[in-house]
């Protein structure tokens, strides 16, 4: 009896107590992560089948009702549409600007560090501060706003940027906030990618008569940046999906949030945590969004052939 017990303990501890040491190092992190990611997710799935107003321990089981009313709610489906439109604006714009900046900065012979710092500096700003400058100063829609002042110099009309829905000028405000804030971050990623392109490729191309400029970019630089490009696009889409800060700060005011430009998280925020605190409905929404993220991520990974080894 004594012997089996000791050997069981010994087996649990592993050779030289390795198992024990593994859990001493990894345990606190793993337990915390499980507690604050897996447990809430599981709880959320549970809540999504209940009528849970203002409570986290509901008793009224409603089956799939929350899911059905979520999917039947035109505000929810239109929030998904808002995400699609936002992605179509922000992903290509950020990708092109970040890559362009990286290419230009990379080939500078002096002041490279200066330009890199300037373009990267907006990443130090929060979305709240950026939204504040955009909403109250650049695009405030009155005469002393910067955009309207500049338009005025050229004889343009005054525009109420954030409240004009035809044409939807508010997209210009929303997209430029994120573009300004993020472009430098992705430029750094592209600069790191450019550093890893072997110089021999360019030498060989020059020997083969490829002209510097478009030809070299098209046939050498762009293909060599493939891994970075995939990472950048994945990050951009995932971040666009999580967009909340700039939408909330630009558009909500004392009267609440306008009925347009409402991305999924803003919708979820008002549903789950606004008046009534419908946590069952909010949880169903979180589950649906989690599934969409999973599907989109896997589809993108397939599309880009992630995991396929680079040649």
């Amino acid at each position, binding site marked *: 009896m004594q012997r089996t017990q000791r050997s069981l303990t010994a087996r649990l501890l592993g050779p030289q107590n390795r198992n024990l040491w593994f859990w001493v190092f*990894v345990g606190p992190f793993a337990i915390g992560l499980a507690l604050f990611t897996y447990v809430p997710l599981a709880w*959320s799935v549970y809540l999504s089948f209940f009528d849970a107003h203002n409570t986290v321990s509901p008793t009224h089981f409603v089956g799939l009702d929350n899911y059905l009313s979520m999917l039947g709610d035109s505000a929810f489906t239109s929030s998904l549409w808002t995400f699609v439109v936002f992605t179509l604006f922000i992903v290509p714009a950020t990708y092109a600007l970040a890559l362009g900046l990286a290419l230009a900065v990379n080939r500078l012979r002096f002041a490279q560090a200066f330009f890199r710092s300037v373009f990267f500096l907006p990443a130090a700003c929060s979305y709240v501060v950026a939204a504040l*400058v955009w909403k109250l100063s650049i695009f405030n829609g009155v005469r002393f706003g910067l955009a309207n002042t500049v338009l005025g110099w050229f004889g343009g009309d005054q525009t109420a940027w954030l409240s004009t829905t035809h044409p939807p000028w508010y997209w210009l405000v929303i997209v430029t906030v994120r573009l300004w804030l993020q472009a430098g971050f992705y430029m750094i990623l592209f600069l790191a990618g450019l550093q890893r392109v072997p110089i021999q490729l360019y030498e060989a191309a020059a020997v083969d008569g490829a002209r510097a400029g478009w030809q070299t970019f098209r046939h050498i630089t762009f293909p060599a940046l493939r891994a*970075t490009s995939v990472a950048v696009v994945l990050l951009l889409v995932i971040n666009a999906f999580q967009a909340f800060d700039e939408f*909330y700060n630009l558009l909500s005011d004392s009267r609440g949030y306008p009925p347009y430009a409402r991305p999924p998280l803003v919708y979820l925020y008002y549903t789950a945590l606004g008046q009534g605190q419908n946590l069952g409905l909010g949880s169903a929404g979180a589950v649906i969004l989690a599934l969409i993220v999973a599907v989109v991520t896997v589809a993108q990974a397939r599309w880009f052939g992630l995991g396929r080894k680079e040649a």
Partner: protein
Amino acid sequence: MKSAQGPRGNEDALVRAGRALRLVLLIALAALFLIPFYLLLRNGLATEQDITSADWTFFPSELKWSNLRELFDDPAVPMAHALLNSTLIAVATTLGTLLLASLAGYGLARIPYRFANTVFYAILGTLMVPAAVTFVPTFVLVSSLGWVSSLRGLIVPTLFSAFACFVFRQYFLGFPKELEDAAHIDGLGHWRTYWRIVVPNSRPVFAAVGTIVFIGAWNAFLWPLVIGQDKDAWTVQVALSTFLTSQTVNIHELFVAAAVSIVPLLLVFVLLQRYIVAGVERSGIDD
């Protein structure tokens, strides 16, 4: 560069013209990128009349440094308290994340264990679940712990960063094993080897992850908005946002508050930029 077929001299002139054009374009873009910072200062140090004047002035008629005192003296705007909260949260989050994630990353990389890979993939899997999707469920958990409007509720749930753990694991996989072997021969166990040999020789990666986490924690908005419901638990971002969306404060006061809120980060950026760049490079490359 289209007509590069021409004689040699022409081509050189074209290349030089292209280079000059690129430089001009870069300078124009750099100026454009700096405009928001300029506006923060301009409006933060101007009088209300200057800001709302119909004629645009590039510089306010006088620099009103007293706006700063006005901000901190205004009892309706708890800016000093919000700055204190943000500092406490950002420092605690950074230190806690570094400690937890580096230990876990080291264990995963260096201590042989049968289920190490399973544990690693369970951690990696949470990267697939955006934090924003879990905010409702995590709010449910945190509120049932009674942590709403407390610093605990603002800090503890954000301490377990799978991204930081991943970066540390990749780094420690490449750490020179000879150093650890020498320590083991000298009779040091895993724990003391880690603290005496590994950590002192890994300062750059700690600085890189630390700066990224600090910036993220200082600028975080959704979670502090959800959890910091009482005025006493407001972070700088929540305070700014509340006055921005309700518009109950003078414009110049709001701008000077925003300018003050980015000072700590600008300092971090200027002093630690090479670590931030290293951190960003590690964050995007998942090979």
